[in-house]
């Protein structure tokens, strides 16, 4: 190595900084144990430390940091939901995302692109109009647009009526954005660790300790850990953990597959979604198209790929962008999603005292990472559920007050 270069490497002006502290032994007890070191669990740890001064916190994960659905979603952020409860909740998340990079000192490549949800039928147009009115009422920038505006917002889109499902209009949501999803988790991990939170990877929870209807700790592959309060945030495995805690969930674990194309020149500014064609697509800053469709047709604890997914997605995508027929796929993956009957999440209290749940995030969890962490931290710290989370309570299924978010949360309908 040239000496001149080595000199810079050894200068005290450039100290080696670890992103996360080195692994250490588990303590026998913590105030709060969070199960799941994905975006939601890490965000909860961060806000517990930052907003509530609770730093005796341990985040456990059976795998590696943010290796589950935090790394497997399609990184779309928006708040144009259908129910007032949903819009209010996701809007707080969008506001937290907008200042995220500055607040945490970590660039998440937040990029506001605009979000077009295409309507190909009169029924879809009616739902779009309904969503736009709910959104505007809640102060969210959202409107129904037609072909002239769509052509201006997204010139490459095929607006011909010589296709199976001609485009009639769209719901346009200007604040719709994408961000680098891994960076969101890494930022929360680093800032939580800076405040004293311990993150233990490759530490699987194998049992929930309880006495008199109250949680007292967890069993792990590295021994038992006592805890004052426990949070589960383990999308995909929510039912398995809840079973250890002694209750059942309104959740089925269903894979969602996604893929990216080879990098292309920048041509697609907005995020484009079509419910009728079961497609959503956006272009990343490095040019890859990120593409996803509907969930798999049945439940599975696995992340295998299927040809059927790629066949149907590509057939539908080519109707929107015929010139992509020559583009190649670069890679493909899947995540295990928590699908609920009403396409809304499950957050808050559980039948087990001091045991809190953050689950049911289906195909819509990434965009909620900041608000979920902030509000779950508030729930854990105060021991009661804030208004904004109340509609998402587990007991809503017992009370028959579901949220009905399917018209805005999924493309498979």
């Amino acid at each position: 190595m040239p000496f001149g270069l080595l000199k810079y490497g050894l200068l005290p002006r450039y100290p080696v900084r670890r992103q996360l502290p080195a692994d250490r032994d588990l303590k026998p007890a913590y105030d709060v144990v969070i199960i799941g070191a994905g975006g939601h669990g890490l965000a909860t740890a961060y806000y517990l430390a930052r907003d509530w001064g609770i730093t005796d916190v341990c985040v456990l994960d059976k795998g590696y940091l943010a290796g589950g659905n935090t790394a497997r979603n399609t990184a779309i952020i928006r708040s144009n939901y259908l129910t007032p409860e949903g819009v209010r909740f996701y809007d707080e998340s969008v506001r937290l995302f907008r200042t995220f990079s500055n607040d945490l000192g970590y660039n998440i490549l937040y990029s506001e692109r605009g979000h077009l949800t295409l309507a190909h039928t009169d029924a879809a147009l009616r739902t779009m109009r309904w969503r736009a009115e709910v959104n505007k009422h809640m102060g969210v920038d959202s409107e129904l647009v037609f072909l002239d505006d769509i052509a201006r917002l997204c010139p490459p889109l095929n607006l011909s009526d010589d296709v199976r499902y001609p485009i009639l209009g769209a719901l346009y949501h200007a604040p719709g954005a994408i961000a680098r999803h891994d960076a969101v988790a890494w930022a929360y991990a680093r800032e939580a660790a800076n405040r004293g939170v311990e993150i233990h990877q490759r530490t699987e929870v194998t049992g929930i300790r309880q006495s008199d209807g109250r949680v007292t700790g967890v069993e792990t592959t590295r021994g038992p850990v006592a805890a004052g309060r426990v949070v589960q945030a383990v999308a995909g495995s929510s039912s398995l953990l809840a079973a250890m805690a002694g209750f059942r969930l309104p959740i089925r674990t269903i894979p969602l597959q996604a893929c990216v194309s080879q990098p292309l020149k920048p041509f697609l500014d907005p995020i484009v979604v079509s419910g009728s064609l079961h497609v959503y697509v956006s272009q990343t800053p490095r040019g890859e198209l990120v593409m996803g469709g509907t969930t798999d047709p049945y439940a599975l604890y696995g992340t295998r790929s299927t040809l059927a997914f790629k066949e149907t997605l590509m057939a539908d995508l080519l109707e929107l962008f015929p010139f992509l027929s020559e583009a190649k796929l670069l890679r493909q993956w899947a995540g295990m999603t928590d699908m609920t009957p009403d396409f809304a999440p499950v957050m808050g209290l559980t039948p087990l005292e001091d045991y809190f749940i953050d689950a049911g995030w289906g195909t819509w969890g990434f965009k909620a990472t900041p608000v979920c962490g902030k509000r779950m931290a508030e729930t854990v710290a105060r021991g009661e559920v804030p208004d904004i989370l109340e509609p998402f309570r587990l007991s809503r299924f017992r009370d028959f007050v579901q949220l009905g978010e399917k018209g805005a949360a999924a493309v498979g309908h």
Partner: protein
Amino acid sequence: MKIMPCPLNGPRNISEFVCGGEVIPEPDPATADDGAWADYLFLHENAAGIVREWWFHVPTAYWFIAERDTRTDEILRAYPPPAPVAGPGDDGE
């Protein structure tokens, strides 16, 4: 392509079928309260392992039961529902 061994039609492409969910006993309508119905309708075992599920062959409108490993996606066996033939959700036993 994944193949389902349909008890009526023999091995067929999985895309011809719809999964009807776990085989769970239906509450007794004469005695079940609202809570029991809510649990029956909305809660799932969602087990990781071998499960019994209702499946429906769409072209022939035929319901049957299949045993499948939800960790490996392996279909172990499929057989007609016990008489009387019932819809999804009825344990049929």
